């Protein structure tokens, strides 16, 4: 019985089916907000309000011809999208959506799971680099090297910024951190600097403007994804969508107080808070232009890392003196 329940969780909710539906909904929301900010319509005609557009894109990509370059490393080339999807889906399981009561932990909540989540979110970057490298295409190689260069920029501020509220809450477990901030809502305010830093770093991790240098369309054709087509490209795109859901879920859990209130209310809070974070990310995408790779690294180390350290100092100060 418990095995059946676990399988149901893994496949339906919060497993792959739920992640698929919600990720396509979040992509629709992102595209619609981005379009409205630019005075355009966005997806309109596929399904009511264009809601089925991302699913239509996925189905179209799955039905296209799958071309593997002659000189590419075939095993690596084929396996990478599947690995990527598996990694982000596993990361999605760790969000405290279902069992939010820290006294009755489910199978997906244990001390230290915030570290596992951050580690699982760093792996897609490596997957993108390997995808670019195994394509043996000049543009993919440049894209892959840019992906890793960006990793040197945003990873440290992201870790510092996400771990500061965890320090304040005194726990390494996502469910406990969320519960702590639900009980002390005022303590969300000292973490605002960290929230801003984490938003910018998450934008860099997801490779969206202003940090979409690795797959900059007007410069290096497709970057790491140049040689991918058909089902593999569909999986990569689904992977970036689910990564968006997981990152915004992480930010909502750690900074905005998680998803409490039982099954139904918790689910609504999950949708509401993640959509708020996605709205802020889309706003950032529309306001800025793309910056160069050397400017990304210098910006990250000149502004983001000191701000993240400042946030850490504030948290240590409050914890030591006040609490």
């Amino acid at each position: 019985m418990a095995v059946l329940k676990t399988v149901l969780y893994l496949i339906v909710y919060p497993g792959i089916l739920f992640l698929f539906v919600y990720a396509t909904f979040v992509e629709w929301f992102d595209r619609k907000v981005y379009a409205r900010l630019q005075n355009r319509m966005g997806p309109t005609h596929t399904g009511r309000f264009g809601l089925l557009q991302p699913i239509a894109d996925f189905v179209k990509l799955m039905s296209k011809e799958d071309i593997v370059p002659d000189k590419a490393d075939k095993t690596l080339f084929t396996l990478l999208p599947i690995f990527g999807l598996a990694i982000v889906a596993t990361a999605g399981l760790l969000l405290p959506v279902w069992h939010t009561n820290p006294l009755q932990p489910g199978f997906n909540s244990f001390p230290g799971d915030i570290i596992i989540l951050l580690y699982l979110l760093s792996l897609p970057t490596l997957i993108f680099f390997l995808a670019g490298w195994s394509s043996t295409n000049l543009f993919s190689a440049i894209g892959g090297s840019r992906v890793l260069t960006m990793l040197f920029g945003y990873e440290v501020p992201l870790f510092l910024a996400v771990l500061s509220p965890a320090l304040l809450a005194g726990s390494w477990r996502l469910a406990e951190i969320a519960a702590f901030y639900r009980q002390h809502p005022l303590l969300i305010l000292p973490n605002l600097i960290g929230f801003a830093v984490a938003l910018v770093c998450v934008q860099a991790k997801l490779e969206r403007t202003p940090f979409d240098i690795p797959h900059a369309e007007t410069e290096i054709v497709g970057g790491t994804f140049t040689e991918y087509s058909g089902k593999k490209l569909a999986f990569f795109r689904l992977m970036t969508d689910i990564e968006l859901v997981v990152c915004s879920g992480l930010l909502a859990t750690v900074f905005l107080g998680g998803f409490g209130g039982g099954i139904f209310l918790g689910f609504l809070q999950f949708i509401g808070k993640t959509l708020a974070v996605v709205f802020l990310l889309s706003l950032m995408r529309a306001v800025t232009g793309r910056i160069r790779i050397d400017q990304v690294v210098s910006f990250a180390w000149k502004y983001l890392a000191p701000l993240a350290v400042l946030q850490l100092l504030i948290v240590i100060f409050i914890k030591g003196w006040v609490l």
Partner: protein
Amino acid sequence: MRLAAFLPELLRHLFKKPATVDYPFQKLEVPKDFRGSPFLRPELCIVCRACERDCPAEAIDITSVNEAEKKFKLAIHNDRCIHCAQCVDSCPTDAMQMDQRFEIAAFDRHDLKMAWDFVRAVVKIKPQA
């Protein structure tokens, strides 16, 4: 240099109507004198062949069907036409006119040929400027 200098304007656009016209469900009106496709008014044509000579794309074909009865056939190949309206300007009797059609896509280029059979008219030529 301010960060996000035009954020207020950007947010204002969230509440404005989009600037896109939802073609083909909504269509814009074309202005008067829009250059669509050419057509002939056969009762005014005196077969001077000025339009055939001046057309840059060789889209107009005038052939004689019956020499004695002065019957002619004028064919306009709308697939070759570049819609410049030079034929309208060259015509001395205003027989060539432009209409407002622009949705003229077809699957076969030969579907775009238009032809008129007529008898040559006797019309006073309008005085040229």
